């Protein structure tokens, strides 16, 4: 009995997993909204706390937005594989005839769709509350795009490594933060440069390159980590 021809193609496997993840997020909106609310609250409470001095706000905004984005993403990464591990879906994913790195990529893409993308969409609002020049909005969204995508991809490695542990939260952050530092530094600095009216191409290029590196390597590392954690 051979059914090699009936196995759904790569794209079908990829898109059904992305669709399932988005559907799950839709049915449990709390999981999606929590990090987003966290991000929005940190970014809007900060101006209230430090006062309305325009100069001070503009000075601290890029760093603050990026720290909030990083923490919001880490917050939602914890649960990336936990429910799959607990209900046995992870076994079924690993045992499916689809290549596991492709499924890991689908998990990261779905995570970005429900966590990174909303952050980017609310970022203009944040820029507004920090009284930043409107010219910054584009650069901020672009750097957040590459940055959150890299975080979803790299974070999946940490989430996969810690999936079998009951309290993996702190460990996950420790594993991921070193990899996230370049994103934070370049992201915040690039937005600062944009606010000052300087050229930003170098920072954007670096973040794009970092994102491409994560895109090509992280799914393989995630797949290997999942196999080990699930043994």
């Amino acid at each position, binding site marked *: 009995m051979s059914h090699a021809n009936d196995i759904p193609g790569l794209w079908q496997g990829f898109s059904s997993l992305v669709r399932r993840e988005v559907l799950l997020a839709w*049915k449990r909106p709390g999981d999606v909204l929590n990090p987003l609310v966290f991000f929005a609250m940190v970014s809007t409470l900060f101006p209230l706390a430090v006062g309305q001095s325009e100069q001070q706000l503009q000075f601290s905004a890029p760093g603050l937005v990026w720290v909030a984005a990083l923490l919001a993403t880490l917050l939602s990464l914890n649960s990336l594989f936990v429910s799959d591990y607990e209900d046995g879906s992870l076994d079924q994913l690993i045992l499916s005839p689809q290549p596991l790195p492709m499924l890991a990529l689908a998990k990261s893409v779905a995570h970005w769709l429900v966590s990174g993308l909303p952050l980017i969409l609310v970022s203009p609002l944040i820029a507004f509350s920090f009284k930043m020049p409107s010219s910054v909005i584009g650069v901020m969204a672009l750097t957040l795009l590459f940055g959150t995508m890299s975080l979803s991809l790299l974070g999946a490695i940490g989430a996969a490594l810690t999936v079998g542990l009951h309290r993996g939260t702190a460990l996950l952050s420790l594993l991921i933060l070193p990899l996230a530092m370049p994103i934070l530094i370049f992201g915040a600095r690039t937005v600062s440069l944009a606010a000052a009216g300087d050229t930003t191409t170098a920072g954007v290029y670096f973040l794009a390159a970092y994102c491409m590196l994560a895109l090509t390597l992280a799914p393989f590392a995630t797949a290997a980590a999942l196999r080990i954690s699930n043994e």
Partner: protein
Amino acid sequence: MSHLLSSHALSLLRGDRCLVRDLDFALDGGEILLVEGPNGSGKTTLLRAIAGLMEPEQGELRWHGKPIHENYQSYRADIAWLAHLIGFKYDLNLLENLAFESGLRATDRSRTESVLQRLGLQKLVTLPLRSLSAGQQRRVALARMLLATAPLWILDEPLTNLDAAGQSLVTELIAGHLAGGGACVIASHQPIATSATVRQVLLK
């Protein structure tokens, strides 16, 4: 001719305990490999090794005479896995779960309706799995096996949580699968009524 599934001097560790030592078996189409033993004797570990979810410490498993890890991706297309955990999302309903399933592995969707009817699930397809009883969830997991077109079924305690009708249904389904030339690896405390050849593995 090589056997469908065979093990050669297989040894398995769980933590630092050796659960299976130098195990040899051979299984052909239409046969059952029945794994028996008390709790904690390594039944699930052996099943996970047969599925390729864990690496053996020593020895190897062969599918059609070739080590399973040599061509693991195509081997995965040939197995269907049923364990204690349902392997579906509790927040989604049966149709959504099965739609995902058919994007992942080869399934015979034309049989969906008849399979659901046979399992008595046709009225429950739009409820989230969370709201089904343990026995119904078990039947949902069986739906995956029946829609999959895999020749090797690996079943860990397939009769758990099922009522008498459910248990005899599983026995029937296994018989049907074997009659079609498939093979089963089953870990069970309860005897499985069957007229097929049963190869026993007793773990201590």
